[in-house]
């Protein structure tokens, strides 16, 4: 079980609190499909030991994730990824939504809105497609 | 359960000090061997060396105690499951025990060599005992100062004080007529002066150690 946490990277120089980083990394694994729905995950204590962080930080991360419906913790049985079908896709959607909002916020500060904004977004999309075909 | 830990501490002190113990026994026996060469010069030289061996072990053993505190080994020891009074007990027992090993060995060896070989007449035996007990008393003084003193200065001061007194003490003792009067006789003669001196020395030993134990047991901040 501890081998599943081998690629987690928690950084103290990252300005975000550690529990958020942990949440982000767990969500990422689900979003990408590495951790499928229903898969068991490390206990709070085990993850804390593997990451060399405090138990309370992992506990908080798990609590928040449970509140968001991403994982489920059962007394005595440990934790697992929520079995909701399409969870991975939903998380990816959420990520996208977050980035789009951020982009819109910066654009608004620069005075770019509406059609302009749409145009810029399409440009960016095209650039990505170009790179993929090369 | 705690005799075990105290026992381990005593064993530890033995391991730390056994070279010194063996060296002092060796030096003392060597001194006695020199005496056996049977000239006046070797008798004097050998006797002096003999007492020096006793004096040396008496002042070097307590140095270990001072060092234990100075070199901050005390925090390490007190993290073990013992109380401060058990530490003091282990120290008193191990130091005294460690001292007794060479002291008893050498005094017995000296008594044997007097009884068997006769370089010195047997009348010298009470004098030998009086003189041999002095490093023992000195050892107790230095040990007491080292254990009770909060800084290393006390142990050093006691060491210096004792070492500078032995010469004077020996000189004055040898001038007491009651002590020397029967030194040349072929049998052992005890008189009240000799017994009083021996008694005082023997009483001082448990007194000094007991006072040390008492004072240490009162301390509230041990480390």
């Amino acid at each position, binding site marked *: 079980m501890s081998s599943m946490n081998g690629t987690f990277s928690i950084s103290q120089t990252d300005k975000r609190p550690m529990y958020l980083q942990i949440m982000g990394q767990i969500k990422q694994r689900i979003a990408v499909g590495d951790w499928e729905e229903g898969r068991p995950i490390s206990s709070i204590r085990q993850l804390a030991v593997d990451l060399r962080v405090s138990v309370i930080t992992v506990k908080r991360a798990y609590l928040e994730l449970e509140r968001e419906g991403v994982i489920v913790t059962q007394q005595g049985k440990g934790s697992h990824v929520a079995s909701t079908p399409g969870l991975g896709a939903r998380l990816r959607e959420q990520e996208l939504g977050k980035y789009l909002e951020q982009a819109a916020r910066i654009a608004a500060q620069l005075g770019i809105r509406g059609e302009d904004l749409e145009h810029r977004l399409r440009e960016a999309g095209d650039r990505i497609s170009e790179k993929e075909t090369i | 359960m705690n005799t075990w830990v105290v026992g381990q501490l005593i064993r530890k002190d033995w391991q730390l000090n056994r070279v010194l113990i063996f060296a002092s026994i060796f030096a003392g026996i060597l001194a006695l061997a020199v005496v056996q060469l049977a000239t006046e010069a070797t008798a004097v030289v050998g006797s002096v060396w003999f007492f020096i061996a006793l004096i040396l072990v008496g002042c070097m053993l307590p140095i270990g105690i001072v060092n234990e505190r100075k070199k901050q*080994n005390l925090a390490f020891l007190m993290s073990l499951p013992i109380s401060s009074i058990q530490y003091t007990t282990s120290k008193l027992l191990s130091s005294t025990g460690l001292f007794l090993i060479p002291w008893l060995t050498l005094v017995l060896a000296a008594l044997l060599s007097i009884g068997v070989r006769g370089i010195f007449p047997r009348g010298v035996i009470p004098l030998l005992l009086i003189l041999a007990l002095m490093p023992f008393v000195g050892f107790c003084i230095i040990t007491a100062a080292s254990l009770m003193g909060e800084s290393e200065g006390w142990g050093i001061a006691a060491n210096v004080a004792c070492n500078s007194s032995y010469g004077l003490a020996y000189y004055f003792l040898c001038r007491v007529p009651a002590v020397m009067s029967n030194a040349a006789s072929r049998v052992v003669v005890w008189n009240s002066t000799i017994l009083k001196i021996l008694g005082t020395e023997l009483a001082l030993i448990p007194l000094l150690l007991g006072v040390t134990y008492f004072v240490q047991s009162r301390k509230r901040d041990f480390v």
Partner: protein
Amino acid sequence: MSENYHHDLAIELRGVCKKYRFFSLDHIDLDVPQGQIMGLIGPNGAGKSTTIRILLGLVHQDAGEARVLGHRMPAEQVTAKWDIGFASEDMRLYESMTLGWHMNFIRSIYPTWDAAYAQVLLKRFGLLAEQKIKGLSHGQRVKSTLLLVLARKPKLLVLDEPTTGLDPVARHEILRELTDVMADEGRSVLFSSHNTQDVEQISDQITFIDRGRIIDSMDKETYLDRWRRLRLEVPSGIELPVLPGIIGVRQEGRLAVATANAFEPDLANAYENSGAIVQRIENMTLEEIFVANVAHSREEVEA
């Protein structure tokens, strides 16, 4: 003397006081629940070492109650110390003896000595049992002392500055061993450190001590959550309101930085309502909190 101590507290201090000539510990209250790591931070001379020594029964408090693993200290220190592993920065081993001798010495006393784990630690720490202590570098000595304490697997680890003076690799090894201890929820750790990064990373609870008094003591996540730095733009003519939960504001021209130790989103709104612009709300590292906290608590005392 209260008999109703909590069985699930590894450490419990109530009203502990100790007076020295130039320094006193003043009514120290401290709880460390079992299975947790408590980080003790504070400036030099704050009283961390004294508090720790009282926990070990090495110093007898003048007032107040100290219980460690349920045992009253210093009265029951011998019983308690069977299950406590203590290592402090000023602790020294016997120079003329080898590390292996020390390992045998500890093993001869404690039945919980785990020889296999001791070997693992030797390898991880890069130490040789045959080496005499006097031949070791400072970092190696610290690691040796910690090895002796870790290999016994005690129920409670009390460490005074365990990572001070260690290179980054050694520090990470120690942190690894300390978090490994947490795999067993019956074991607890209290450690004091200047290294706020280490404390921030592995502590479940944080206690702040300065000049003999406890300034803060609570779980780390809550604690870190209460502190924020708000970067404000203050247009001319606007005066920043004094808000509860803000312990300090520094202003230079039109830019200001407000430090909050009881942050709520309402604080940001209050500033915005007053006409200032909240540019950024930043989390603070434990080190930044440390500095701000000490400065603030000293101002309070002087006021």
